[in-house]
């Protein structure tokens, strides 16, 4: 199980990296490498040129403002361990706690995770839940891609071959929102069979003002449940409303693979959505919920 041959490049600057990406045929970026190197070892992936961006300056870091911007090469571990982020948007750390293990979080990056696009990846799910904007650059200039437009197919991002993800901006719900991230896997750290992330923000009247639900592991990309979200807005997220939202989750399309059948995935989606919404509602700090 050894990788096929490739050439290795290690740019020091963004400009250098983008130059290589534009000029080298059959090139791929190497971020944390926690999926890519495994795929290279197994010869599921073949590249002619690997462009290692681990030493490119200015690609890592977390900036908190009205929105939250995270550099593409920020390690999963550093996102997980950021106290400011945990205070502002606890669901991110909750999701990251499910991502791989100590070793892989030490290396893995948010940009790499988004670039790889495993359908069950928690960070991909979080980006979808939090209406992320993905910032990409190429020699032709910078560009923003809305997360909704990002997935083009199974593990196929909506990027041109010369484009590199440089960061991602997350749009957090209002302060005091309730949240939950639940996933089903038999072992801690495995990719989820199905995961559900949700945030619920209530208005001063105790009604849901902003509901977001994302399902991971169902199809080629995380799935926002617009219909269920709309249904919840204006309710108090009482059990009947939650059950109706869960019912919607349970009839989404899903894939079958070695880990689970389509039927089971749908079933899990319904169960986890109900549980996540219930938990998120309990966590919400304002409004007249009780």
């Amino acid at each position: 199980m050894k990788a096929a041959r490739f050439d290795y490049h290690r740019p020091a600057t963004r400009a250098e990296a983008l130059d290589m990406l534009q000029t080298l045929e059959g090139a791929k970026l190497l971020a944390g490498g926690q999926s890519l190197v495994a795929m290279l070892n197994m010869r599921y992936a073949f590249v002619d040129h690997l462009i290692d961006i681990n030493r490119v300056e200015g690609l890592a870091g977390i900036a908190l403002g009205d929105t939250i911007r995270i550099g593409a090469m920020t390690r999963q571990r550093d996102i997980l361990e950021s106290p400011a982020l945990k205070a502002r948007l606890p669901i991110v750390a909750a999701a990251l706690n499910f991502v791989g293990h100590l070793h892989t979080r030490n290396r893995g990056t948010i940009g790499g995770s988004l670039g790889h696009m495993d359908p069950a990846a928690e960070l991909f799910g979080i980006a979808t839940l939090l209406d992320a904007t993905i910032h990409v650059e190429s020699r032709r200039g910078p560009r923003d891609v809305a997360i909704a437009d990002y997935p083009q197919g199974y593990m196929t991002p909506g990027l041109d071959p010369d484009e590199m993800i440089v960061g991602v901006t997350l749009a957090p719900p209002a302060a005091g929102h309730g949240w939950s991230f639940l996933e089903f896997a038999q072992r801690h750290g495995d990719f989820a069979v199905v995961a559900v992330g949700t945030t619920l923000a209530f208005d001063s009247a105790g009604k849901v003002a902003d509901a977001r639900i994302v399902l991971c592991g169902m199809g080629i990309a995380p799935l926002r449940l617009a219909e269920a979200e709309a249904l919840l807005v204006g309710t108090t997220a009482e059990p009947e409303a939650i059950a109706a939202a869960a019912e919607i989750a349970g009839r989404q399309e899903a894939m079958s693979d070695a880990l689970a059948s389509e039927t089971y995935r749908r079933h899990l989606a319904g169960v986890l959505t109900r549980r996540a919404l219930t938990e998120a509602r309990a966590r919400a700090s304002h409004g007249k919920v009780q």
Partner: protein
Amino acid sequence: MSAVSIRVTVNGTPFEREVEPRTHLADFLRHDLGLTGTHLGCEHGVCGACSVLVDGRAVRGCLMLAVQADGAEVTTVEGLAQVEQLNPLQEAFREFHALQCGFCTPGMLTTLMQLLEEHPEPSEEMLREELSGNLCRCTGYAGIIRAAMKAAPLLKAQRENAA
């Protein structure tokens, strides 16, 4: 497909070597440097047997290319013991029968070195969750958890003495 020259410090010893880009760190340690204590159990990042410390952080040796370790400090299982003296974690592994075939052991030890440094007073539950990235087929984990619990304060004392 030219080889790349790298400098890497392993267990305190500097090395300079030419490596093929496709060679992962674990193979480099094993075959180029002869440090065969680092084992390969899956080569796709699940079993954890190849875990080593790179600049103090545990990584999968099979998921990092040797060229990426250029300039780094690497610690392998061979670097854990003082001369002729096992460290407290190694001692505890022996005391609690935390290893049988010993194939997963180097990865368990290196991972625990980072974990126990960051959590000097670990709970069993935390250890079980964090060790989920290191598979053992022989022991059923009980001895490993007991050994880690015993070693945590001893390692802490050792660090404090060294400081």
